[in-house]
């Protein structure tokens, strides 16, 4: 948003005559007659305290300045203005007293030979006196490092120490498992209201809640998208009420209701079918039936005495097969999973490697 005023300085100082910063307060800021031999006071058409030649072309004829003088002259306007404050500034002055708060750029208070603006052809950028571009932009002259140090020292009295017992993230989470996030909006204008400020975000890790297996599964089903499996975080965003306090209360109410509801078991929950299951369970599945069937038939064909199903289930090969099938179904097909499955099937059916 800042205007790009050509190549010439903003904060990079354009020192018109090679003056060093330290010597500014003494040298060069007094009124000097211009090239046309115009007397020192009043200098129409150029600032009374500029030490560098005027911005406009040097061939500005005498009659132009004379006409401006004639047009602009009123009896009171031939008043001698005091020299700018910059001439009396010490090099080691306290700058935070010159700019204690945010203020517009005051050329008579800033002892820097700053120029800003697009230069005229074969000319230089306009000087700082009466320069609207320097006034337009926000400046940070009130925020020098010593000034900020003073601010911090003044604010320290109002600050309280962070509790020493909470020195790690885990401890913070253990004592304060619920995180509430609210946003405050600052804008310029006469109204402080912003409708976006009523949104409240509630975050909690389900591991911090007292949930058993059934309760956790039911809660996850109830909240749907608001639960993230990777981080085990439940996020509730409320904005349906007009006030932030109301949204916060509603969010806490939702959490309470979810918790209590997930512990209850309704009658119709016993009708949970295989499609509703969140993860693959091998017990009483088709895979188990098929495996047991195959093994029993193998044993029968080998004329081995009756082996019970429980013995088969407890055997090593069947256990391996069970684990590999569960891994395949729950985690998807990966290299490791497939090779594990291959090994387990070979062991189960006694196929030599």
């Amino acid at each position: 948003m800042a205007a790009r005023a050509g190549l010439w300085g903003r904060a990079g100082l354009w020192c018109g005559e090679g003056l060093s910063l330290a010597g500014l307060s003494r040298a060069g800021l007094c009124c000097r007659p211009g090239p046309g031999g115009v007397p020192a006071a009043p200098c129409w058409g150029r600032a009374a305290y500029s030490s560098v030649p005027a911005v406009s072309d040097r061939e500005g004829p005498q009659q132009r300045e004379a006409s401006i003088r004639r047009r602009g002259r009123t009896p009171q306007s031939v008043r001698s203005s005091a020299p700018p404050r910059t001439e009396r500034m010490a090099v080691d002055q306290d700058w935070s007293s010159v700019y204690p708060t945010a203020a517009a750029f005051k050329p008579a208070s800033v002892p820097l030979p700053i120029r800003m603006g697009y230069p005229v052809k074969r000319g230089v950028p306009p000087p700082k006196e009466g320069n609207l571009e320097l006034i337009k932009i926000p400046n940070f002259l009130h925020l020098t490092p010593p000034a900020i140090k003073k601010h911090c020292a003044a604010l320290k009295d109002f600050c309280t120490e962070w509790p020493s017992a909470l020195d790690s993230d885990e401890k913070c989470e253990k004592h304060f498992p619920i995180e509430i996030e609210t946003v405050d909006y600052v804008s310029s204008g006469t109204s402080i209201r912003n409708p976006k400020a009523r949104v409240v975000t509630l975050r909690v890790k389900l591991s911090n809640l007292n949930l058993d297996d059934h309760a956790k599964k039911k809660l996850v089903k109830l909240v749907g998208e608001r639960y993230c499996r990777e981080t085990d975080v439940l996020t509730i965003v409320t904005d349906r009420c007009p006030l932030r306090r109301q949204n916060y209360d509603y969010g806490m109410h939702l959490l309470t209701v979810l918790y209590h509801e997930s512990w209850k078991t309704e009658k119709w929950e016993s009708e949970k079918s295989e499609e509703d299951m969140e993860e693959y369970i091998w017990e009483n599945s088709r895979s188990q039936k098929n495996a047991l069937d195959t093994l029993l038939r193998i044993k029968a064909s080998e004329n081995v005495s009756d082996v019970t199903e429980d013995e088969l289930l407890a055997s090593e090969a069947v256990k391996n097969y069970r684990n590999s099938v569960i891994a395949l179904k729950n985690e998807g097909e990966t290299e490791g999973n497939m090779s594990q499955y291959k090994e387990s099937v070979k062991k189960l059916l006694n196929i030599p490697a």
Partner: protein
Amino acid sequence: MAAAARALRVLPRALPGPARLLHTSPTCLKTRAARVRVGKGDKPVTYEQAHAPHHIAHRKGWLSLHTGNLCGEEGAAERAVEDTFLRRFLFGTFPGLLQDEVVLKRRGNLLVVCALLSRALPPHKIYFLVGYTETLLSHFYKCPVRLELQTVPARVVYKYL
């Protein structure tokens, strides 16, 4: 019933039938807006006047700074109306003294008006005008208004057109 009859009596002739009309809007001379036309070379112009609107954000900054024009923020229209009123108010309160456009800055609730004045009035009159402006505008807009003035001996000429 009687009112309708009276209304009909007022109209001497029949209502006009369907017609083809042309809708015109007032002319909007975009190529002539905020541009000082080049003349003989005797017209002094300030930096602000010398640069056309397409130089904004390239060679010129903005005269009014507030958050209303940012994405997702409200209040742009209200700020624009306030700006227009403030410029006219200041133009009338400091007659003949304003050397350049007024710069308006808003910092939260605070409204900072930066004006460039000439030295035609004695200081005590200027102080009165400053107090008058600040008090009146604060009461009017219900927010603190601060006037930051700078005086120049004459209008700062950028070039002659």
